[in-house]
């Protein structure tokens, strides 16, 4: 996840149909007949354009992957595409063991240590707030929410200079704690926004009947709203995970290089010292990318649903 807060629209729709069902259906299904401009009508020009584009998109990635398995001498003296002339030539996984034994191994661990708390902690806090914004009436509610909407487009940079100073004074620079806290704060507006948008689509009748049965807000939240909001919680979790894992700026400022550095910093240092050779840089890059790619590919459906449900309704 490379952008910060996607400027999502509201997910609210007025009808009270069960949200879970609606989410599961592709957007087109809501209009009865799926609109298909011209399925299967691509001519050769369209096909070849898309084929070329897909190739252009994949080739840099393939080059990276191929190089990371090449012999150091080969990797630095010949182009990676030459392997296709001799596909059974000398392949090696040594580059991976070299970088893992170097900085990449510890950095990989650090990235998990950094990312998992920074992903999980904001969810609960944001869910409580989103519940209040959706189902409770209180003074300043509209103002506070408008503020959150405005903050969606504000870059983290506005907070970094003073935070760095505060952390330095408190001796927190270089600690995971400082980054967990910062990402929790930075992720809050988007989290509240996504969750409220989703909660608004939940049928109000359920909440009302729960309150008739004597359930307080706290119980309703835990027993009903949280379980029903799992798709939105998951969508945000994926956003936040990718965003924190892939972040370089906040990590460089608050963690810095050294024993606590995450993979993004380790990769940047590898690249800075090009004497290491491309076979190591590419192996390091692939290690850096492996986890987000895995998350992305396995959870793509959740992620896409979160993205589209967020803005298509606009």
């Amino acid at each position, binding site marked *: 996840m490379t952008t910060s807060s996607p400027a999502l*629209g509201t997910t609210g729709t007025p009808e009270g149909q069960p949200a879970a069902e609606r989410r599961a259906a592709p*957007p087109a299904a809501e209009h009865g007949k799926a609109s298909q401009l011209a399925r299967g009508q691509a001519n050769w020009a369209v096909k070849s354009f898309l084929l070329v584009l897909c190739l252009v998109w994949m080739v*840099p990635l393939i080059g990276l992957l191929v190089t990371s398995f090449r012999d150091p001498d080969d990797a630095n003296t010949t182009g990676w595409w030459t392997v296709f002339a001799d596909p059974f030539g000398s392949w090696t996984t040594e580059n991976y063991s070299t970088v893992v034994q170097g900085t990449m191994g510890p950095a990989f661990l650090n990235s998990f240590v950094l990312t998992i708390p920074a992903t999980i902690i904001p969810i609960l806090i944001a869910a409580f707030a989103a519940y209040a914004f959706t189902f409770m009436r209180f003074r300043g509610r509209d103002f506070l929410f408008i503020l959150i909407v405005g903050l969606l487009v504000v870059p983290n940079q*506005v907070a970094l200079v003073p935070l760095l100073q505060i952390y330095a004074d408190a001796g927190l620079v270089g600690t995971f704690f400082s980054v967990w806290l910062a990402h929790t704060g930075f992720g809050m507006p988007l989290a509240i926004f996504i969750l409220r948008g989703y909660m608004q689509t939940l049928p109000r009748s359920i909440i009302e009947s729960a309150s008739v049965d004597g359930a307080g807000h*706290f119980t309703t939240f835990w027993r009903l709203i949280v379980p029903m909001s799992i798709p939105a919680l998951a969508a945000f979790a994926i956003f936040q995970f990718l965003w924190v894992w*892939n972040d*370089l700026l906040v990590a460089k400022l608050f963690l810095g290089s050294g024993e606590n550095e995450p993979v993004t910093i380790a990769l940047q240092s590898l690249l800075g010292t090009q004497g290491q050779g491309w076979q190591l840089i590419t192996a390091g890059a692939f290690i850096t990318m492996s986890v987000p790619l895995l998350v992305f590919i396995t959870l793509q459906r959740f992620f896409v649903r979160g993205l589209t449900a967020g803005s298509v309704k606009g």
Partner: protein
Amino acid sequence: MIKIINALLAVVAGVGGAMVLYFVLNYAAERLPGRWEHRVKPYVFVGPAVLLIGLFLLYPAIRTLIFSFANRQSTEFVGFENYTDLLGSSAFRTTLLNTLLWIIIVPAFVVVLGLVVAVLADRLGERSEKAAKSIIFLPMAISLVGAATIWSFVYNSRPAGSTQIGLLNAIVVALGFDPIAWLQIDDGKLNSLLLMIIMIWTQAGFAMVLLSAAIKSVPEETLEAARIDGATEVQTFFRIVVPQIWATVITVFITVLIGVMKVFDIIYVATNGNFNTNVIGVEFFNQIFTNRNNGYASAIVIMLMIAIIPVMVYQVRHFKKQEANA
């Protein structure tokens, strides 16, 4: 090992601590007499989140504004000196110009490319459509550092005569030309444009996914009606489809725009702003990190914020309109 335990502890303490906090506050609120309970409870629910936003965004933002009028260690006020210094330097004006080029080129290109792919892939068979879209979408998972690394390899250049291992130069040399040091040539902003391609590569899939979903939710009847009236496909697209997906186009544009305004990683990793490729995201980082100049760094952020305010106003207005319709 200790780190893993610490991380697990952090999750347990963070989540558990928050749960206990909410539970205790909620319990306390429930003890309050009748009306007060309903008055106080919402603030128990929103309180911690609002506090975090205040502590990590609003309060630092105000400090940043103050720092932007102070010297490098933030010990003394210097008035507008940071701003006049920055705007007076030609290097910084180049930085602003580069950022402006990024803003003009990248979001528009991403939206158009995303739209083109969404429309064209729609015409493929179901399986090829899925495959094509997955390929275009994939780079979105890759960090900008990773993306910059991947493309640095494509743009790699070696002196004439030696074997080129960068793809682009291999092609150039195969065609009989001398290799080109791509990222060092700023004629016609060539190097900046090449760096923009990296950003476009990572973002086009995002645009495509959102726009594709929007196109697919355009009701078939409206298209049929246009076709019966004798509209060509191009006319149908621009007069019927585009107006119906316009809200999504704007959403995508704004999201990419914000990402581009603060872009840092790509340029920092690929050139560190050298060869006239600097942008304000990188300049900000170098001021705060390398030069330790809080004044300049803060002034740069404030300029960025001023540029973002119109987007913010649009965002809030758009949201209010949507809420009114809901």
